[in-house]
């Protein structure tokens, strides 16, 4: 793989054969070509590499939810407490190497007490598994480079006569930090396993998580659903013990070839009943645009509840109103699961007199409404001032024989000519100059009715004298 460093093209990475022949990353391409004229080269693609590492990180979530990226080209997994699920540390390491091998990647694995130790071993040593508490012994033979401090400090250390990390350890630390800096001492302590450091996983750890690993890849859909139902049961029990319910349930399906698929359902109120949650999952799975493809089977299934909320059993009032509210909330959850958040909406009033902005639709999943703006109440006794339906955008019409500054006498819309018998207006609505700009045209709105009894809300855009030729639109229809 060839990349550019400064003006020269240098080798970024070589395969095993190239390494055997003596080529190293950092060699100038020209030199390499001189020695091996028929060298096969590929342009380095750092972005593509990052994407690959991200995909691998996702695939590694099957081992533990705490996965972080260890640049460059590395992953850090915190497997505290999970190794027994995979048959022990050695088996886990072997499986990781085997999986990567199946994808055509060579992986090197190191397992240690702390992340810094593992990183040092894998990059500057031979990898391997370190027994608990054996960090010092394991890293002793690593070269100074493993500290990963700056060039200067490294040179200073070498000049001082240190060759490996074991040498550094022998030295009393107070003088050490005075001479070579705090950072170096801290790095050393981390690598030797004396300081505990946690990784920051890519995805936050959920409140409640249950999973099942299958001994053989599972393809059969009903069994998959049954397993999911069991997991929801278990999660429900966990939540119950804490007196909590969940509002978001995420099912992660791990395919044997490394592909990870996540399906999440949300509810308006905290729930933990299996039936309710499974109903939502059924709706969501049935409505998936891209159906769940098992490929060669699923290896594992994980259900997580990112955040638990207090769930108190409410006493139903005498008229059973609580149950009705719950039934309505459940219905809305099912509709959202089936059709998507953007298709189940409620109306909110906005503080704007411009018709397109006076009202808005908001997904029902957005949460409790802010009761700030109230709907403008019409004057009692007056007919409706606003149409029942609104066109977005307003539809242009041709008006004929209009009196200037007055409502149209007739207009043509969608190839139909309408004769106007009643009209009211103009209601002048000036644009919000702070949003639309100072040049936006003023609109004069008219409520008009044609001979057949259809009622329209039309407007003239631009006042006479303001615009060249004012244009007319129909904006909405009355009942």
């Amino acid at each position, binding site marked *: 793989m060839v990349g550019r460093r400064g003006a020269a093209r240098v080798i970024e990475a070589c395969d095993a054969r190239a390494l055997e022949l003596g080529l190293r990353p950092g060699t100038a391409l020209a030199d390499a070509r001189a020695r091996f004229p028929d060298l096969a080269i590929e342009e380095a693609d750092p972005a593509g590499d990052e994407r690959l590492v991200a995909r691998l990180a996702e695939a590694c979530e099957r081992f533990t939810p705490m996965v972080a990226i260890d640049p460059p080209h590395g992953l850090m997994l915190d497997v505290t407490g999970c190794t027994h699920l995979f048959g022990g540390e050695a088996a886990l390491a072997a499986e990781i190497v085997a999986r990567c091998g199946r994808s055509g990647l060579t992986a090197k694995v190191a397992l240690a007490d702390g992340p810094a130790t593992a990183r040092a071993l894998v990059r500057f040593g031979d990898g391997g598994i370190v027994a608990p508490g054996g960090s010092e012994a394991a890293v002793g033979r690593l070269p100074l480079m493993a500290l990963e401090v700056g060039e200067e400090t490294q040179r200073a250390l070498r000049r001082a006569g240190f060759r490996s990390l074991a040498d550094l350890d022998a030295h009393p630390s107070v003088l050490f930090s005075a001479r070579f800096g705090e950072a170096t001492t801290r790095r050393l302590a981390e690598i030797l396993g004396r300081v505990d450091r946690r990784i920051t996983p890519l995805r936050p750890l959920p409140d409640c998580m249950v999973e099942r690993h299958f001994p053989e890849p599972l393809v059969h859909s009903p069994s998959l659903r049954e397993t999911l139902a069991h997991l929801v049961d278990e999660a429900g029990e966990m939540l119950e013990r804490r007196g909590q319910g969940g509002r978001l349930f995420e099912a992660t399906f791990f395919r044997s070839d490394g592909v990870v698929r996540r399906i999440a359902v949300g509810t308006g109120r905290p729930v933990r009943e299996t039936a309710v949650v499974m109903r939502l999952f059924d709706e969501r799975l049935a409505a998936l645009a891209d159906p769940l493809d098992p490929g060669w089977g699923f290896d594992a299934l994980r259900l997580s509840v990112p955040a638990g909320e207090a769930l108190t059993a409410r006493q139903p009032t005498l008229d059973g109103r609580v*149950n*009705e*509210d*719950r*039934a*309505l*909330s*459940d*219905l*809305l959850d*099912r*509709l959202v699961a*089936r*059709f998507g958040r*953007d*298709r*189940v*909406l*409620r*109306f909110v*009033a906005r503080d704007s007199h411009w*018709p397109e902005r*006076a*009202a808005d*639709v908001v997904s029902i999943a957005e949460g409790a*409404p802010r009761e700030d703006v109230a*709907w*403008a*109440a*019409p004057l*009692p*006794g*007056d*007919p*409706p*001032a*606003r*149409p*029942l*339906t*609104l*066109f*977005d955008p307003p539809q242009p019409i041709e008006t004929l024989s209009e009196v200037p500054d007055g409502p149209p006498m007739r207009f043509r819309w969608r190839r*139909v000519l309408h004769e106007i*018998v*009643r*009209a*009211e207006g103009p209601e002048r609505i000036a644009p919000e100059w702070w949003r639309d700009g100072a040049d936006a045209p003023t609109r004069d709105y008219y*409520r*008009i*009715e044609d*001979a*057949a*009894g*259809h*009622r329209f809300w039309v407007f003239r855009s631009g006042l006479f004298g303001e615009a060249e030729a004012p244009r007319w639109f129909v904006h*909405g*229809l*009355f*009942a």
Partner: protein
Amino acid sequence: MALHDMGSVRRGWHGGETLRAADGFGLGVEAIDERCGGLARAAVHEILAAGHDDAASAAGFALALAERATLAGPDEGFGRDLFGRPRTAERGAICWIVQDYLAREAGALHPPGLVGLGIDPARVTLVRVRDMADGLRAADEAARCRGLGAVVLAMRGDGPAGRIGASRIGGGPRDWDLTASRRLALAASASGVTLFVVRVAAGAVASAASSRWQVRSAPSRPAPANAPGNPAFRVALLRHASRGMGSEWSVEWNRAYRAFDLVSDIRGAASSRPVAALPADRSAAADLRRTA
């Protein structure tokens, strides 16, 4: 209280809903409600728009009926106040399900317009569906929910299943048919939700609907200075479980009373209306043959 609102005054003197059916509601007009015996709650009612451009009217009529259906239920005797205005409690939310194509053609529901009809937009949940099959599925779900008051499903065309907004030519599978309507009716009767199905550019089809209405826009009773007045409809009862079929009425929606007024009842109506008031029991068969 304006002097010409005689219909409302008469209603008030009668002191109570004209309809005392066990679980029904009416339009609020004596003549109509007595003639057809009222409309059933927990049932399906079909509302056909007479023409393509009557979609907004049909929707308005359906929403007005939904508002009436979710007024005080039969076992909550709220009675009326001195001026004949019903003392009511609202009962249940309204779920408005609309097909995307219809929203593009006739406009999207505008909440200030709902306020103009006397309906609180906070009670309305909007569900946008891609096609009729999805619409029926959503209506099915909603019809099973006890916490809901009314569902209005607005669709365009007949099916065939899968073709969005198309009118049928010749035979073929429909989305809206006896089976679909029966399923909705069963769900509604179990849960108590009243369903209104608005069909635009669609023909009458055998269905399990408790009543079927055809709605078209009608000239309104003008407000001062020849302004368009309250929403006015010409409604024809095409089918009803008990009686009243074949009748047509001109009605106007009264926002304050949340009820309809029969237009021919009103004295002093402006003579500029080109259509004369029709007697209540005139046969609508001739009219139906004229509609496309």
